[in-house]
């Protein structure tokens, strides 16, 4: 079972990499065929990826998310879901280049933490923990999309203000769309992230008796950044460049939790148990 899962994992990674090449090719050549292929491959890779995750779950007997390998794979999977919605609604494939690339990075990184399937640590055997995982995966996926939009927004505005319209300028969606999609993604991400922090706090009190840990501080910082984003937007009608920058900073914070705090700094929270 696990062998199939691993094989499919690599197959999915290969298809995503091809999809990245297709998105890049479409961007440069505008050939209709590579445009359809890029989206088709992303969907194909995602289906293979889905089956891989199902087999992993069957092999280990629990939802994939308890180890570093599983969690990154699951986030990558959700990023694709989120992206496919964005592509469908924005009718632009430019973000696909960024998304498929970062997705490949996630998967390669996941493989670096590969562990054979096994029962979860006793501490993680709780439905609250499962919910906690799923919430952070969805939030991460949404924040990734938001950061992608933010990045493209900055690029597009830079071209506009610098009066240097080139190929990128023409292919990128309008500022309004980038801003709007980014905002929706942050809104969704923030909602899930808030619930995730709440479930984390409840679980921490129950298991450890305390919630004080570097991860709490880092989470609070990330939460505040996104809260600030939404607050300013609601209060001052803020949009544009500064919102884009905030979305990127927030994403970096969340990623630093995942890639620095959890594995190296946190006393309690981690995959090493």
């Amino acid at each position, binding site marked *: 079972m696990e062998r199939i899962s691993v094989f499919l994992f690599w197959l999915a990674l290969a298809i995503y990499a091809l999809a990245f090449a297709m998105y890049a090719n479409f961007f440069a050549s505008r050939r209709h065929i590579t445009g359809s292929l890029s989206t088709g491959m992303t969907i194909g890779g995602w289906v293979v990826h889905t089956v891989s995750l199902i087999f992993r779950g069957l092999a280990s007997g629990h939802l994939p998310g308890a180890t570093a390998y599983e969690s990154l794979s699951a986030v990558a999977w959700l990023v694709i879901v989120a992206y496919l919605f964005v592509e469908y609604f924005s009718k632009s494939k430019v973000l696909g280049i960024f998304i498929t690339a970062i997705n490949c990075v996630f998967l390669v990184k996941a493989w670096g933490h590969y562990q054979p399937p096994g029962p979860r640590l006793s501490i993680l055997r709780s439905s609250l923990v499962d919910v906690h995982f799923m919430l952070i995966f969805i939030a991460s996926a949404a924040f990734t999309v938001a950061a992608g939009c933010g990045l493209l927004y900055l690029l597009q505005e830079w071209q506009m203000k610098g009066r240097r319209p080139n190929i990128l300028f023409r292919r990128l969606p309008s*500022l309004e769309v980038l801003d709007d999609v980014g905002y929706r993604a942050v809104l969704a991400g923030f909602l899930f992230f808030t619930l995730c922090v709440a479930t984390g706090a409840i679980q921490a009190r129950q298991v450890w008796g305390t919630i004080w840990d570097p991860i709490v501080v880092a989470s609070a910082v990330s939460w505040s950044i996104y809260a600030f984003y939404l607050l300013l937007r609601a209060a001052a009608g803020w949009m544009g460049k500064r919102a884009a920058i905030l979305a990127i900073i927030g994403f970096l914070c969340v990623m630093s939790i995942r890639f620095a705090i959890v594995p190296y700094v946190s006393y309690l929270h981690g995959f090493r148990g």
Partner: protein
Amino acid sequence: MMHIIVMGLSHKTAPVEIREKLTFPESKLEESLQCLLKYDHISEGVILSTCNRTEIYAVSDDPDKGKEDLIKFLSQYHNLDPKKFRNHLYFRHSIDVIHHLFEVVTSLDSMVVGEAQILGQVKGAYAHAFEAHATSVIFNRLFRHAFKVGKRVRTETGIGESAVSVSYVAVELAKKIFEDLAGRTVMIIGAGEMSELTAKHLVANGVTSVLVSNRTYERAVELANRFHGKAVKFDEFPDYMVDTDIVISSTGAPHYIVKRETVAEVMRKRRFKPIFLIDIAVPRDIDPEVDKIYNVFLFDIDDLQSVVDANLAERAREAKKAELIIDREVEEFMAWLSSLEVVPTITVLREKAEAIREAETEKALNKLGELSEREKNIINALTGVIINKLLHEPIVRIKECSRRKDGYLYIESLRHLFDLEARTKVEGRRSRDEGRRTKGEGRGTKGEGRKGLHG
């Protein structure tokens, strides 16, 4: 033998005084085509007549005589001495015609490379010719192929993508700020021709409400009426800017009329919702410092012009990509066209018959079991003779017919009846390497045919 030729004159070769005398009105196009087909050496024809070009495409059995016919037709039709326009004409023949048509249809030959109209114009010209039964096998295929190429170039290159006039650039930029112009408001400050044109394009692209502000209020009202918009008193325009998305300014004022403080105030009031300011006045109307305010996008006339220049350069680059596509497509069409030659068609027909004969004889011999060498030879000879006798008449006749002006029709029919179409592509390539081999045997093949005749 058939030849494709084109005769034409365009903005590149003839001044408008000549071009306007040699146009074909669309309403009479079918009559004109009927006239054209009456000439001895013309078997198919399409007349393309636009304000920038007049071109007559024709299939002829003789390129030189066909050319003379075309000139005669043009001069008789327009009642004009050929001497008057002959110098402005260009002629192309065979592969160059196809290349030329593909360039025309993809707008590479147009005055503004990348313009979108020409494809529709060629489609119209072909539709008229088709209606008038002036097209047949070759032009039906050629023009449909050309439309495919036109479409391909439009989707696969960015040739018609970017705006190449100042007012369109303004629309393009507006669409890169606001996704949808529907429901947006545009304000014109200073009623000038240029701002009116730009506003017109914006309205055509979805902008719904138009405000006009002018120092003379009457002129503002006049222009506003034309757009079903609203006139605004000149000293009140900053108030209206709060709810405006796009501002086009082109007053004759000698100093800035939209100052930094004004816009800063407006932006505060509109909670920094993005605004697009277009300053097409010289001297400028809007303080360039305004661009530094958050979410203000200010473009002056030089900025717009530099975008136009960049877009023109981009089109030139895309045109190179289009050339590559055209080259490939020309090749593809030529492959089909050469299949309409009589010699390869006969070769393919013979090959097909021979393949069937061999396969069926083999089957029969297997069923018969042990046979002597002599018996086998007799069976082989018998089947060979049947094939050759059966094919003899069609081959002799197709050779005769192919000399006629519309001979390729017979070849096309033969290919269709014997289903040789599908074989051509593979065979075509194979016979090229075999071509050298069969050259020596060429006589042998003929000899075989003759043997069949006597046998």
